[in-house]
């Protein structure tokens, strides 16, 4: 059985924080690959690639299927959708905050529009 949830955003973020791991996922975004083929795409040793794969698997971002001695890797986009949801949520949060900040400060900052020539 493929291990699925429980999803932890912490784990997803940690896994995605590394550019090599993001590239691995990208290379799997359109097709499955064998571990050995995947390793050929990266200028590092097979054990180094394997280490990254393990992190991605633990985060639920990768599924591994075994065909005899061959290991095939496949992307699981579910945790990424969760990360994407997080990004969208906070984009709105900060945009809303900055709109409110602008409204607050720009109102406060404007010289009072009363009568002219009333300088102290």
């Amino acid at each position, binding site marked *: 059985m493929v291990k699925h949830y429980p999803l*932890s*955003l*912490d784990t*997803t*973020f*940690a896994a*995605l*924080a*590394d*550019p*090599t791991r*993001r*590239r691995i*996922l*990208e290379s799997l*975004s359109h097709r499955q690959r064998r571990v050995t083929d995947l390793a050929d795409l*990266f*200028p590092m040793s097979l054990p180094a690639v394997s280490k990254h794969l393990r992190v991605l698997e633990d985060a639920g971002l990768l599924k591994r299927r075994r065909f005899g001695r061959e290991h095939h890797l496949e*992307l699981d*986009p579910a945790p*990424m959708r969760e*990360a*994407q949801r*997080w*990004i969208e*949520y*906070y*984009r*709105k*949060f*900060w*945009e*809303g*905050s*900055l*709109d*409110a*900040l*602008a*409204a*607050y*400060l*720009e109102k*406060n*900052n404007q010289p009072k529009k009363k009568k002219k020539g009333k300088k102290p």
Partner: protein
Amino acid sequence: MNTTTQPVSLKVSRLIKAPRERVFAAWITPSDVVRWLGGEKCQIQTATIDPRVGGEYHFKMKGSDAGKPEMTGVFREIKSPERLVFTWLTGGCTGEMPRVETLVTVEFAAQAGGTLVQITHEGFPDAELRDGHNDGWTASLEKLEKLV
């Protein structure tokens, strides 16, 4: 889907028609923060802020969100009036989001007509980054980019 190539972070920016010192102050002054942070969706009732490196902030929510967990975090960098870096425990507002410690960097740039505020919110628990060794992250990322 092309999200895999992006780091888990987001940037939001806006020009505010007010002097940089004033805009910066609005981020670390409780009586200001309660007026804008969170926007309309997520209003803050009370704020306590200890604006120094290592100092904490706590925001309590208003109305129906009262009693929800606080928004809270720790300042990692304070460079008035240019830059503010603090941790941000997510899920403080509506409880929709899981509680994850993240990092927010706010940059204030003086521009004609006001101050450009740029927020970078990074969603990963890199311990080094969280604890304030900001350059370490950038440097190691650059190193990795060169290696690959």
